[in-house]
């Protein structure tokens, strides 16, 4: 296999205050191959968003801190760069789009100014050139009247349009990696499909790898090549998308799969996983999923299972399978 584009090793992001230590991300490992889509799945509070912010070195300080780990991107460890070097990476070789398109664009700047800013910052274009390129970018994300849209303000666009404008902004410098944190959660289903299609086609055109963070397994099935399942700040299962969907091994992944509503099954109640994700401030000792796991045994509550390679390329953090 080729050298991965992004290699994350033992990433730990904690929120440290005088009285508590919240382990939002607790030893995460994964890899992203060039031009592939990695899906990160997990419930709210599983640490997936904080993982993505850590990759960009945008953990909200001063409490939040990356305490350990390596994030190797195109051969350099991002965690060792200075803030200035890091800001040359952001938006240039690595782009990011957010969940909430309504708040992710600056209300007082024209759409074209916001896209153009990326180009002026990293490509040293003049204002006029940046505007010209912004029009091209807007057209490439599917705006027919791009010449007008560049001069409009975010409040004049709908949610789906804003999300596409965000994508145009993130893709302006043709980054090698796009981090999409729940890019479709806030959108209508039909618009979701449009945005996903757009991301797919941009990926194929520019060879951009994507980290797709979501709790929507349907989106993962649609988009992802590889999948990482997160629970309680840890990776509990990681494999190719096919392997995860055909043969989920971790009890948590299995439970997630069972909780997908199926339209032709006549069920009175939807399957759900009892309980909630444990708070990152006080995880249970032993396996973090054990309190909600139907298979849990005495030993599960004692000892934290290791992430083991059960089949080639298929890693699971469970001692029972």
């Amino acid at each position: 296999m080729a050298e991965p584009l992004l290699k994350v090793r033992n990433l730990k992001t904690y929120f440290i205050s005088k009285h508590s230590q919240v382990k939002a991300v607790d030893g995460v490992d994964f890899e992203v191959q060039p031009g592939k889509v990695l899906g990160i799945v997990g419930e709210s509070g599983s640490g997936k968003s904080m993982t993505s912010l850590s990759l960009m070195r945008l953990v909200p300080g001063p409490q939040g801190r990356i305490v350990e780990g390596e994030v190797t991107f195109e051969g350099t460890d991002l965690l060792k760069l200075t803030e200035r070097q890091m800001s040359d990476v952001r938006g240039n070789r690595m782009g990011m789009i957010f969940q909430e398109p309504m708040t992710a664009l600056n209300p007082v700047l024209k759409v074209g100014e916001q896209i153009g800013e990326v180009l002026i910052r990293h490509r040293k274009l003049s204002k006029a050139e940046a505007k010209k390129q912004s029009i091209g970018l807007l057209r490439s994300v599917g705006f027919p009247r791009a010449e007008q849209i560049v001069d409009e303000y975010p409040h004049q666009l709908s949610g789906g349009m804003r999300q596409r404008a965000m994508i145009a902004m993130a893709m302006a410098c043709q980054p090698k990696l796009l981090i999409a944190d729940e890019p479709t959660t806030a959108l209508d289903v039909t618009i979701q499909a449009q945005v996903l299609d757009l991301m797919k086609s941009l990926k194929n055109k520019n060879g951009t790898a994507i980290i797709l963070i979501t709790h929507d397994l349907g989106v993962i099935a649609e988009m992802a090549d590889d999948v990482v399942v997160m629970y309680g700040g840890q990776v509990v299962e990681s494999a190719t998308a096919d392997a995860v969907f055909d043969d989920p091994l971790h009890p948590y992944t299995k439970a997630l799969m069972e909780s997908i509503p199926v339209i032709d099954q006549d069920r009175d109640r939807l399957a759900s996983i009892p309980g909630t994700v444990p708070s990152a401030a006080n995880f249970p000792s032993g396996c973090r999923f054990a309190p909600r796991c139907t298979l849990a045994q005495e030993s599960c509550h004692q000892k934290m299972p290791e992430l083991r390679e059960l089949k080639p390329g298929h890693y699971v953090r469970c001692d029972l399978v």
Partner: protein
Amino acid sequence: MAASVVSKAGVKSGGTVVKGKPPSRLAFERFMRNPLAVAGAIILLAIIFITVGAPLFTHYSPSVIDIMNTNAPPSAAHPLGTDPSGYDNLARLLYGGRVDLTVAFSAGVMTLVIGTIYGGISGYFGGWIDNLMMRFVDVMLNFPFVVFILFLEAVFNTSGELLLITVVVLTSWPASGRFMRGVFIQLRQQDFVIGATTIGAGAWRTIFRHMLPNTVGTLSVLVSFAVAGYVGLEAALTFIGLGLPLSVASWGGMLSEASNYTAMTTQPYLWLPPAIMIVLTILSVNFIGDGLRDAFDPQMRS
């Protein structure tokens, strides 16, 4: 009936479609639709006009005494009468506004400039920088203002406009600095600010290009409060004898002059005009500030 409703709805939605209007333009239009704010703006402009253009309205000087004609009631020669020293009241009123407005607007500018920069840096960077800067604000906020003026007057053996402005400059920014810090902390969590960082914008660019324009509504209120507050403060300080000397015409000074039983009961032309000017200035500035805040409020954006 239904048809007319539909056609009306069509006209209405057609009429309110906003195409390519910048937020500042929308804000201006909203401001112009607010009658109180417009009235405030007109009154304030009128006050500025008559004080700056004082020589156009009276040929008396505010510092020349008509010794033969003290305590005169209003007449054709002296429309607002003269005061116990023989100064022409109208001239004092018009020229006195200059001092008051200078003090007030320098307070406004300091609130705007230093408050924003200070609060912006403190709120954006957070951590120990924020801590240090806010402790300094605590010190400044708790500074005994009146004692400070007395101290400066004693040290420099002077009292006057320049001293008052110096004090205003030193004391007007901390409150707004603290307030703006809160606004910036709030903005810091917004996706579009994090987004600015994800496209590689540095701290200064993020603060001034992405965050600052979003604080205009709050700023306008802060500035209007500062301006209104310092008009009142000049009056109050001069009234108790700590502000400007008698030789400098000011509204507070005129009130102070008239603060005796005879003047209060029998000579309303001595104290009513400056009192009205102070109240009008404070009210109009407050109305303008309220109007600006409503005009810039992002929640009201269509």
